């Protein structure tokens, strides 16, 4: 029960709105308050020393914004980037980044009481990036914890990767 209470972030009383996006056969929810913009796919500029799921950076009206592929983030195979592939620009803790998904589908309203904890099984996704799951019109929607998608553990991982790059170059 505790976990359930926690999962309903900012307004425990009110229903939160989520933008649902498709990834393979699964449907994920992104807190609508974090969504800034939905764009069609455009090529990005690769950044050195970045983990594989960080595709690169793009120019968002003069700001340099990193873009990550949610499929790669969750260890799924990379799809072709097509006309329907979209980049959802989110803003978390004052930082903007893009999340590439297969398609966006819907905006749904989720009451806090309808959010259940994620059982540690059954999905391809590491539960670390999920706030919970809910059911909308008999579809299961996994609620993403956007804050954690591009967060400190990445930086640490990258530092480690960087160090090993140096070692490799010497060897």
């Amino acid at each position, binding site marked *: 029960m505790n976990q359930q209470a926690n999962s309903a972030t900012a307004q425990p009383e009110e229903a939160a709105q989520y933008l649902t996006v498709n990834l393979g056969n699964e449907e994920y929810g992104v807190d609508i308050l974090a969504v800034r913009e939905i764009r069609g796919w455009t090529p990005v500029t690769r950044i*050195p020393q970045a983990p594989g799921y960080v595709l690169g950076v793009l120019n968002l009206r003069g700001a340099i914004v990193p873009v990550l592929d949610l499929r790669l983030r969750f260890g799924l195979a990379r799809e072709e980037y097509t006309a329907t592939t979209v980049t959802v620009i989110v803003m978390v803790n004052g930082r903007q980044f893009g999340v590439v998904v297969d398609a966006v589908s819907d905006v749904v309203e989720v009451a806090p009481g309808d959010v259940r904890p994620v059982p540690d099984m059954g999905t391809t996704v590491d539960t670390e990036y999920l706030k919970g799951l809910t059911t909308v019109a008999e579809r299961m929607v996994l609620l993403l914890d956007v804050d954690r998608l591009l967060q400190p553990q990445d930086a640490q991982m990258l530092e480690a990767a960087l160090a090993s790059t140096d070692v490799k170059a010497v060897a």
Partner: protein
Amino acid sequence: MSKVDLAQFHKAFYEESLDGLDAMEQALLALDEGAEDPELINVVFRAAHSIKGGAATFGFTDVAAFTHVAENLMDEVRSGRRPMEKAVVELLLRSGDTVRDMLSLSMTGQPAATAESQALLAELSAMVSGVAVAPVAAAKAAAPAEAIEGWDIAFRPFDYLLKSGNDPARMFRELEALGPLAVTCDASKLPALADMDAESSYLGWTLSLDAGAKRAAVEGVFDWVDGDCDLTVTPRIAAPAPVAAAVAAAPVAAAAPRTVRDPAANSESSSVRVGIEKIDTLINLVGELVITQSMLSQFNDGVDASQLEMLRHGLAQLGRHTRELQESVMSIRMLPISTVFNRFPRLVRDLAQKLDKKVVLDMRGETTELDKTVLEKIGDPLVHLVRNAIDHGLEMPDKRLAAGKGDTGTLRLEAFHRGGSIVVEVADNGAGLNREAIVAKAIQRGIIATGEGMSDEAVSDLIFEAGFSTAAATTDLSGRGVGMDVVRRNVMDLGGTVAIRSVQGSGTTFTITLPLTLAIIDGLTAAVGEEIYIVPLVSIIESVQVKPDTVRSVAGGGELFRFRDNWMPIVRLFDVFGCAGQRRAVDEGIVIVVEGEGTRIGLFVDELIGQQQAVVKSLEANYRRVTGISGATILADGSVALIADVTGLVRMQARRKAA
């Protein structure tokens, strides 16, 4: 009641006070050196006077009380009652520092009076003859109550009264506000019409006020005309009251509420004051841009061949205006380096005094402009270099004489443009760096094993190594736990370099080279695999095509190539950045020879595309720092290109070598 929030003026007050204090300090230093311009004394007086007035108005009573006494001291000097002696200059210099501290405390909503300021205030008060410590907003003693029924007033203005803008009718209206008023006019002195001057006053009045108002209130109505009229104010009283009280100015208390300041409002970088001429230039440019735009808009419906020349002309004009507009906008961020240099006369004077050394400060190029961000960060490194030069560089007078030099050392502080950079030099004509002492210290610190075979240049560079200090004992002056390595790091963080040139016996020169601005760089665009990188022009020595026979492989997989008789490592950007695309052989591409931290390396790229100005964007704002990359920019097609960080690449190469 008005609802004016005085807090909105605090920042302006703070900024102008700091300017005033700077001007005051400069004037005091000039006076200290024997200048006799009375305007200098006025400048000092005015600074104290203005800060006092503003502080009292905006509710900073501690600051007002302090500056009030400083102002009185200056007033004595100004009126010739006190000579401008060393002790006065000294005390006022310290007072300036204290006021600066008090102001910044006030701005953050903290009490400005500290033990230190109180002690100095006592010193000031002691120096000023017969001045109480805090006369500002001193409470006036309450007058004894008078049982007054009304007032009889006889008022006859002198004939010039009207010329001062005072109007008897206005005064009567004010009296009427105090109670019922009866007015009798005496026109007996009215001249014949022909003799009358329209702007003179010939009338007299007797007035009777039927109200028990306070004497101060009644006399207050006439306070501006005291001395310009015959005036008797007599109370109709039940009990007698003293009449002798002098007309006093209406006491005004500093009633402004003290507002707690948002500390962010105090942040130095939050605003830039821009000269009006820069704004005017901008406005003119935008005006021209609008004209060009309207000229070009006629081609909306297509161009026929006869108009091509006109279109070309319009586009060229647009290009020129855009460039000028960009320069103009950038110049708003530019401030003269004098804002940093200004602190040095004082610093040098104090240091020299403390060390019993004789130093002349020679400042040049103070009007050279630098980006505000660069300017804010270059102050500390410069202070360190100046302290070092006086502490360690310049010798004591007797030593200088013994060495056949004048007893007074010279410290030159100079800023100038060189290419696309700003150069700041700190030069002394002192003893120069002691090679033996540096080598010995470096060996002791384990930085090098031996000094043999090292060039003087390389030995001098050792002082920039972390943990190195040339001072035998850590002195109060330079040894604040900050070494030259910090100076170098600070300069490098600004995209600059520090070089050192020393001649034993005749002096040391530090040369800091800084980018004009951090916001725009000139760069070389290079293709690496399928990607494009930008290399800052300022770090580039030369671009060369290497022949396979000038390249040598070394153990561990590295490559060296010969450049002007030196072998230097080749850093393949393709590998360092893990680029996508085809890897090329060394003779299929270009090596860009770059220098960072005094070390040269060759960056191997596939080809050079061109040269362009790049507006530097931060990668860290939304992502994080990437080793070897200093930022990003947006290319003409809207895509993003990364900017190579030469210093970072040099360090990476050094780490690789060390591993």
